[in-house]
């Protein structure tokens, strides 16, 4: 576009003012993109898990209501179910940790059949299966904490009144979308400790993860599970892993609507800031606009020039903001944020794109009023004005 050099020079002429506009857009879009990315990230995790053909079964009353261990075998017996394992969050503290990392009680005989995307060398799997107090850890957390095969890990219970004394028997690896910072141990060992303390949670589990057979339909199997337990003492609810993951986001007090409203408010404020700066710049240029029109620039050309300028400024701000979110989340470990359960995080491309789109939107909206004014300026009046 042949007007681009002129546009760029006009942006550069009000350096300080436009820099401030860009920075305010940058900082705000940094935050908005981060929030959006959090939502998108959860959704993306959910989508990826759809490929793994898994169902998550909980008590109809939700995660906090526990189910008897016996349901696992009953679920496994249903047609269309390939494998099923219990999965219970332990939430213990390791050494001086302030927050628990992800630790799950599960069934080592079924685990690798359900979590098929993770890899564990067969001899390590065998060693884990044979050691009741054995555990398996993700390669990333193993590296962070310096754990090697045979190391002892003691986890201090926070939810349950017992401590686990575990030995590392295996180190798993997983795909990029997987969580490389979990620890898995025998449910039977955990249950033994609970029984010894006559704990109410003894013999009970939080969730069952189900692998659905290739030929079966996910929804059919889920319905079969729901129906099988509907009239029992413990009515269950089966949902896809995707729905399960997303229910976490919704659990945090309808974050989605909150984030969207916040973003809307921020964007509105940005439009005001940018529009004000743009209007100021153009007021100083009334004569120049009049001259352009006298030379033969059409209204639509002037309109386009002003909108283009506003969009360039906003887009520059957007690139600053979105770019730094992307860089930050690529190179900084999310666990420093101290959000429990947030062990990995990246900005999905569609959130980055949304951020840039918002920037362009801000530019357009902020440019409209000054652009229309400039386009409608009377040449005669504009030339008379002595600036």
């Amino acid at each position, binding site marked *: 576009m042949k007007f681009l050099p002129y546009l760029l020079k006009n942006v*550069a002429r009000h350096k300080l003012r436009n820099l401030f506009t860009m920075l305010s857009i940058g900082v705000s879009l940094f935050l908005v993109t981060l929030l959006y990315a959090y939502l998108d990230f959860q959704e993306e995790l959910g989508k990826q898990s759809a490929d793994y053909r898994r169902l998550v079964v909980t008590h109809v009353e939700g995660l906090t209501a526990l189910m008897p261990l016996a349901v696992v075998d009953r679920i496994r017996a249903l047609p269309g179910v390939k494998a099923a394992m219990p999965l219970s969050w332990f939430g213990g503290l390791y050494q001086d940790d302030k927050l628990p990392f992800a630790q799950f009680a599960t069934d080592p005989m079924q685990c690798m059949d359900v979590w098929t995307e993770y890899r564990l060398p067969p001899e390590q799997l065998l060693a884990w299966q044979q050691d009741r107090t054995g555990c398996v850890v993700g390669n990333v957390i193993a590296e962070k904490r310096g754990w090697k095969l045979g190391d002892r890990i003691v986890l201090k219970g926070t939810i349950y009144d017992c401590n686990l004394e575990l030995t590392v028997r295996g180190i798993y690896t997983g795909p990029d979308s997987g969580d490389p910072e979990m620890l898995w141990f025998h449910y039977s060992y955990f249950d033994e400790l609970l029984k010894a303390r006559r704990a109410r949670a003894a013999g009970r589990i939080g969730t069952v993860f189900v692998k659905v057979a290739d030929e079966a339909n996910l929804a059919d199997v889920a319905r079969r599970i729901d129906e099988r337990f509907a009239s029992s003492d413990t009515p269950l609810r089966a949902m896809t892993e995707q729905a399960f993951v997303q229910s976490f986001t919704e659990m945090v007090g309808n974050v989605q609507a909150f984030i969207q409203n916040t973003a809307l408010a921020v964007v509105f404020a940005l439009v005001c800031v940018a529009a004000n700066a743009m209007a100021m710049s153009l007021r100083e240029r009334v004569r120049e606009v009049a001259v352009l029109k006298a030379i033969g620039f059409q209204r639509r050309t002037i309109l386009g020039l002003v909108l283009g300028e506003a969009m360039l400024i906003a887009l520059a701000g957007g690139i600053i903001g979105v770019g730094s979110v992307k860089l930050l989340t690529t190179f900084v470990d999310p666990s420093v944020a101290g959000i429990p359960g947030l062990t990995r995080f990246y900005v999905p491309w569609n959130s980055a794109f949304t951020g840039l789109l918002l920037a362009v939107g801000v530019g357009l909206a902020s440019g409209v009023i000054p652009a229309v004014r400039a386009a409608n300026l009377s040449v005669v009046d504009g030339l008379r004005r002595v600036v």
Partner: protein
Amino acid sequence: MHSLPAQPVVQLRHVSKEYYRDKLRIPVLADTSLDIPAGEFVAVMGPSGSGKSTLLNLCAGLDRPTTGTIVVAGQDLGELSESQLTRWRSEHLGFIFQLYNLMPVLTAFENVELPLLLTNLSRRERARHVETALRIVGLEDRMHHYPRQLSGGQEQRVAIARAIVTDPVLLLADEPTGNLDAVAAVEVLDLLAQLNAEFGKTIVMVTHDPRAARRAHRILHLEKGRFEEADIEAIERGRSSGGDGERRRSPRAPSAEIAG
């Protein structure tokens, strides 16, 4: 007088123009008719507020007359819509302002290129036209300078290059020497005379400076909304005897001060 071709470039027929400020009617031009033949160099003089700028704006289609018709280069301006007028202006007119009105962020080259951005010319063709225009005004070596790096006279010459780069038939100049010292004013006037004589441009120049006006073929005197052919000798005589009221009423004419 000069021998002139028949078809007038500017033709005003019973043109009147009035402005309204609040309820107050301000008559500026009253039933004015005027022919400016092709190739003529006309100076328009008259006291401040007599409607000289208004006349140029009307000829440029920047403003519309209250009554009457204006035909410029064979086109009745009253028949054109706002956007058609804008387009027509970019093709047929060159405008020169008292305050040069160059874009401060653009170089001399880019300023002169501006009107060409509205055409379909290629980048290379645009550059060729710009260089020609700058050569005519004698500033080809200042192509990449910004307005603030140029003197007033040079700025005005860049503005003239911008006005002629599209090769218009008519040049309208509103006090082109009004902000210049005597030497720079002479340079600009020489240039206008050259554009008229060598390139056949029809020029209408508003000025307060009788010495500038003398460079024209014809001087029109605008007073109380009407034209009179002015006798430059009479103006000069009036001036030297100290009886010229015009100068006191025209604060924006430093070159007239220097000339006097």
